[in-house]
């Protein structure tokens, strides 16, 4: 049985040792996010060590997913790919959607730009929820964002990530002029590197939310403007500004940035319905699929600052 915990510090591990058939009743159900909430789930690969647990994850996958996982070059990459699929399958199947949905019964496809989505079983007496998800991984953290009623894009990066290229050279090549100016104004190279990583995750989250990817929305065709928290009366500090006219880039999107596990920056982008006053309500849960989860109550929203010097 899987226990659902809401408080940090109350940790009791109960491992699910079903051999052949996975019982959906051992995954406790979850309330769907309200239209104003965004759920963010994450798993740390180095906390998942049990071979029997990894085997259970393999059993959840479709044949194509298994092929993909085992095509990854190296054990760590295979484990990461496996955890990503296990995370998305177990998480989505738990949202009180349909009694017949189990982690292994979910069917996924990619849209024409390659963005993954769930194909729900259609029937006369059931209308699937407008549930959206997006995955992102680094070698040390895998995250899945879930929303209802809005496309979502997320991106995670290690805070310590370095670039092989010089940051300003990279920004001049790929980012917008305004973004280059903002980064150039940062005198401390470490701060500059952190701000670069955060900006990268915001831009990636946006194009993933749009579902058209990097090729569909080259990064120098839009600016992500990060203002100080009190500069905008709506309370929304991060906006996207398309630079070309005409443009296929829409602007009714809201952004959030959080730090995960003290080691990663995560950016989330979802549609702005104009109701939630700009600030995104993010519920973060750290998990080991099939085993445990913790509602992370002390996430640090990254508050934008005006002055870096």
């Amino acid at each position: 049985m899987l226990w659902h915990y809401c408080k940090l510090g109350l940790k009791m591990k109960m491992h699910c040792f079903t051999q052949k058939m996975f019982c959906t009743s051992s995954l406790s159900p979850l309330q769907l996010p309200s239209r104003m909430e965004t759920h963010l789930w994450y798993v740390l690969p180095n906390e998942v060590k049990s071979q029997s647990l990894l085997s259970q994850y393999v059993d959840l996958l479709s044949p194509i997913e298994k092929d993909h996982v085992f095509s990854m070059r190296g054990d760590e990459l295979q484990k990461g790919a496996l955890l990503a699929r296990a995370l998305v399958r177990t998480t989505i199947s738990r949202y009180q959607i349909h009694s017949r949905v189990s982690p292994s019964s979910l069917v996924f496809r990619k849209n024409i730009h390659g963005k993954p989505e769930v194909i729900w079983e259609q029937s006369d007496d059931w209308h699937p929820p407008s549930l959206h998800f997006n995955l992102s991984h680094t070698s040390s953290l895998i995250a899945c964002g879930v929303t209802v009623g809005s496309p979502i894009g997320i991106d995670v990066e290690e805070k310590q990530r370095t670039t092989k290229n010089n940051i300003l050279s990279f920004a001049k090549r790929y980012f917008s002029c305004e973004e280059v100016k903002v980064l150039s104004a940062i005198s401390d190279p470490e701060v500059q590197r952190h701000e670069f990583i955060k900006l990268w995750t915001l831009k990636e989250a946006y194009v993933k939310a749009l579902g058209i990817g990097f090729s569909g929305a080259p990064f120098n065709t839009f600016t992500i403007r990060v203002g100080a928290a009190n500069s905008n009366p709506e309370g929304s500090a991060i906006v996207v500004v398309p630079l070309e006219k005409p443009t296929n880039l829409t602007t009714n999107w809201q952004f959030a940035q959080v730090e995960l596990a003290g080691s990663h920056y995560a950016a989330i982008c979802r549609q702005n319905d104009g109701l939630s006053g700009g600030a995104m309500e993010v519920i973060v849960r750290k998990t080991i699929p099939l085993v445990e989860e913790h509602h992370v109550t002390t996430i640090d929203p990254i508050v934008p600052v005006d002055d870096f010097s």
Partner: protein
Amino acid sequence: MASIAASSSSTFISSHKPNQAFNFKAVSLAVNGKSFQSLTLRSAPSRFRVRCAATPETVDKVCSIVRKQLALPETSEVTGESKFALLGADSLDTVEIVMGLEEEFGISVEEESAQTIATVQDAADLIEKLISKN
């Protein structure tokens, strides 16, 4: 030269040996239902390649840039058929690799073309096409 790492999808991770390479002498290799012409049969028509294949030197340079960007150990095999995604390249890695290729070869790669690059060979072919345009 055209060695491909094959994998069994029915083994669990602990017993799987992902770095085992199999040398195929066969004319074509079926991988996940698609067939690829080996590098030694460049003159044969290919349904899946619309560009002329790049030289081995270009492929080698791309491999070395990829290896450096992804910090792959020397023992890790990188060939023309290597897929960036399977080597663990995320989006930032891919963009950095493209930037490295632009600097190495003196070319400019449109972001829209980035979608067409899935393997080292794709990158090498695109490079030669862009060089010949300059």
